């Protein structure tokens, strides 16, 4: 199995606050990796470093074996290959649903409008939002927005998608529709890195579960291993607080 993204010794501090203190792990091709951990443990920071929304202080982020911090990787191309879905959806408020899914394809991938729209519609159909192509984000519910955000990421035809707590800002009755879409993606073999508090989702969908605590990876392994047979006291305490 090939590692699409490999993290080695990643460090990141905000001022004197060390948020990541040497993180190592590999996201394998075609696998869904779920990252769990208590609030403030550095999960978002890790994803944001992988996507270069934050600049790491030290360590390596290898994409197919190439260090993206070395300056030899084309950043626009890298961003197109690595999609991100945010907790707060972050849809472009000035564009309708279709526009949200078309903008990146045209601007970054230089696809024609026809090709971009066709591709966008394909993924909007996939997430069940095809009927809303000309709706504005403010006309949608949270769950609908997040499904559009997923379609927007998919429309770039990425190799990996990073999800940062995609259902945490949703009303409980909308969590299901989003998790369902993500489950489909995982089953189809999309490489996914998912920060989540939905333990049920992690158990059902993840190939690997990673437990972060205080800026380091404390335990990782199969869902059964990590969720049912925690080895460390910290993970046991975390899991207990969840159920």
């Amino acid at each position, binding site marked *: 199995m090939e590692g699409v993204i490999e993290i080695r010794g990643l460090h990141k501090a905000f001022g004197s606050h060390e948020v990541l203190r040497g993180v190592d792990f590999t996201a394998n091709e075609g696998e869904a990796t779920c990252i769990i951990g208590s609030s403030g443990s550095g999960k978002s920071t890790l994803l944001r470093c992988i*996507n270069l*929304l934050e*600049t790491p202080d*030290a360590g390596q982020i290898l994409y197919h074996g190439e260090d993206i*911090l*070395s*300056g030899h990787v084309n*950043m*626009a*191309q*890298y*961003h*197109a290959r690595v*999609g*991100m879905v*945010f907790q*707060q*959806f*972050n*849809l*472009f*408020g*000035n*564009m309708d649903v279709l526009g949200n899914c078309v*903008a*990146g394809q045209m*601007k*970054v991938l230089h696809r024609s409008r026809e090709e971009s729209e066709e591709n966008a519609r394909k993924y909007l159909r996939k997430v*069940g939002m*095809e*009927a*809303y192509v*000309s*709706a*504005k984000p*403010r*006309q*949608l519910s949270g769950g609908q927005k997040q499904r559009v*955000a997923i379609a*927007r*990421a998919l429309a*770039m035809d990425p190799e990996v998608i990073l999800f940062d707590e995609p259902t945490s800002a949703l009303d409980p*009755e909308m*969590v*299901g*529709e989003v*998790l*369902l879409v993500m*489950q489909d993606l995982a089953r189809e073999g999309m490489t996914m890195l998912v920060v989540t508090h*939905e333990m*049920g*989702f992690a158990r*059902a969908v993840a190939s690997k579960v990673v437990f972060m605590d205080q800026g380091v990876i404390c335990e990782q392994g199969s869902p059964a291993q990590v969720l049912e047979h925690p080895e460390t006291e910290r993970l046991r305490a975390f899991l207990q607080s969840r159920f």
Partner: protein
Amino acid sequence: MPTASTSFFGWVAFLLQKYGTLFLRGTGMTLLIALTGTVLGFLIGLLVAIVRTIAMPRSRDPRRQSRAERVSLAVRRTLLRAVQILMNVYIQVFRGTPMIVQAVVIYYGAQYAGIYMDTTFAAIFIISINTGAYMAEIIRGGIVSVDKGQFEAAHAIGMTHWQTMTTVVLPQAIRNILPSVGNEFIVNIKDSSVLNVISVSELFFQAKSAAGAYYRYFEVYFIIACIYLVLTLSVSRILAWVERKMDGPDNYVIHGSQSDSRAEIVVSVENEKEATKSWKA
């Protein structure tokens, strides 16, 4: 020719008849310089605001940098810093002095340097850079008002700073600041009157010459007060209408294949229940 006993309204009617075209031409000039100045000022403000939001170039990884990279980084940082300082000075100076003073300093200053500006050109030039200084701050406020998540989402799909600005942030920033921009236009309609100090043939300047001819100051200034009021009220009505048009409705009605989309919704709701059940279990 009215006599000394002619009533106020008699004089107004007479002056309107005699100087109507003059007032109209003055009104036209006022609108021309106010509108052009607002548009050009907006463009200046846009440029300044965009440059002021560019983040300082950062090194990706200081440990693996070549000497050439370090030098080029230092040069880019210094240049950007210098430009940003210049822009701050520009904003402070033009917001911190009255436009009437800016007008005489620029107009006579240019003559001092041997440049004799056409008064209309001078008027538009002065209003534009004065407005630009205010617009820069207004537009920056508009950019800040667009939530940071959208910048990040745009960067996350690989857009450059420029692409993010032009396709995502500015359209929303501009919508948000439209009331302030309209307000600048209205301010310019009124404040262009100070340009009479450099003999720009705008409304107030025309009124001054008309008033002097028969020594009817109150009547003439009363007339142009009414004209200014009509102009500003009409402009604010028009702008309010444009804003309403831009916003559109709050709800979305699904069009197209009704039966299909219904089916889709029903399916997704059922799936959702099932899914939630299985994850909860």
